[in-house]
């Protein structure tokens, strides 16, 4: 096994596995020598081991939630569920309903939910959310420097939302997010939307020492 300790993609996978397990990434440092695809496969297995048994209960919760106004469902999510369970329930809700509930949630809580949300569910929910909410949550995650979570949403945004997000994202933040993004198509979408001036600025920024590893991951784009 190779011991590439500075690979941002591998580090991002360890962070995501750590979040799933409630562990600090440092406590899983023995995975630094495991190929990134195998850490992702381990995370998928872990995800199934933790949550597959609860699928039926979550579906019933989502069904019961249909009886209640979206504002009440949002209040229950914040007060009783917490971000992890709210993310799981959102994953089995009708996407439009999940997006409507999201509008009533505080951006800080919604950002916590995004940390746990399955990217496959995000691809259905995010395009149905209003732009104001999407920008508020993106801003919150950027403030936290949570590039790993933002990277999970790359590829889930329609062009109009992505254009607005690119405007509020600094060059170094964008490089860091793209370096850990799970979707190569999503990264292509971002770079396809950047104008010549922004791309030149991004390339200049990526030459700085602190982004060396990220620039290496994105070498075919930068």
């Amino acid at each position, binding site marked *: 096994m190779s011991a590439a300790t500075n690979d941002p993609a591998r580090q991002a996978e360890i962070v995501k596995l750590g979040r799933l397990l*409630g562990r600090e990434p440092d406590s899983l440092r023995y995975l630094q020598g495991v190929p990134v695809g195998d850490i992702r496969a381990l995370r998928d297995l872990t995800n199934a081991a933790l949550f597959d048994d609860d699928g039926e209960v979550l579906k019933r919760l989502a069904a019961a939630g249909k*009886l209640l106004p979206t504002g009440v469902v949002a209040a*229950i999510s914040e007060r009783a569920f917490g971000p992890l369970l709210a993310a799981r329930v959102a994953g089995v809700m009708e996407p439009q309903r999940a997006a409507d509930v999201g509008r009533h949630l505080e951006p800080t809580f919604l950002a916590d939910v995004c940390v746990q949300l399955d990217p496959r569910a995000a691809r259905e929910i995010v395009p149905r959310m209003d732009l104001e909410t999407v920008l508020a949550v993106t801003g919150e995650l950027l403030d936290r420097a949570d590039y790993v979570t933002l990277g999970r949403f790359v590829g889930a945004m329609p062009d109009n939302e992505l254009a607005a997000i690119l405007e509020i994202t600094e060059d170094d933040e964008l490089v860091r997010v793209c370096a850990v993004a799970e979707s190569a198509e999503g990264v292509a979408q971002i770079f396809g939307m950047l104008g010549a001036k922004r791309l030149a600025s991004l390339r200049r920024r990526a030459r700085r020492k602190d982004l060396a590893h990220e620039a290496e991951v994105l070498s075919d784009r930068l």
Partner: protein
Amino acid sequence: MPMASHRESQAALSRLRGVLRGQPPATLSELNRQDLEDLADAVDSARRQHSEALSAALDNAFDQVPRLFRSTVRRIVTR
């Protein structure tokens, strides 16, 4: 790898396979016994914590549902 140590690693790998309920990627077999046991402990502990959190959240959620809908919601969720 000495035989006893190899056997212990195989046992730890088998336990990890059990808690994951599936075959872990082959490269994980190159981890040592302690690391494999740590991974299995982490998955096992997370599963128990998640189950407890779900149960507590359900109890808590019913209290938040408006009284008018409470019995219907409870019936749907616990049927």
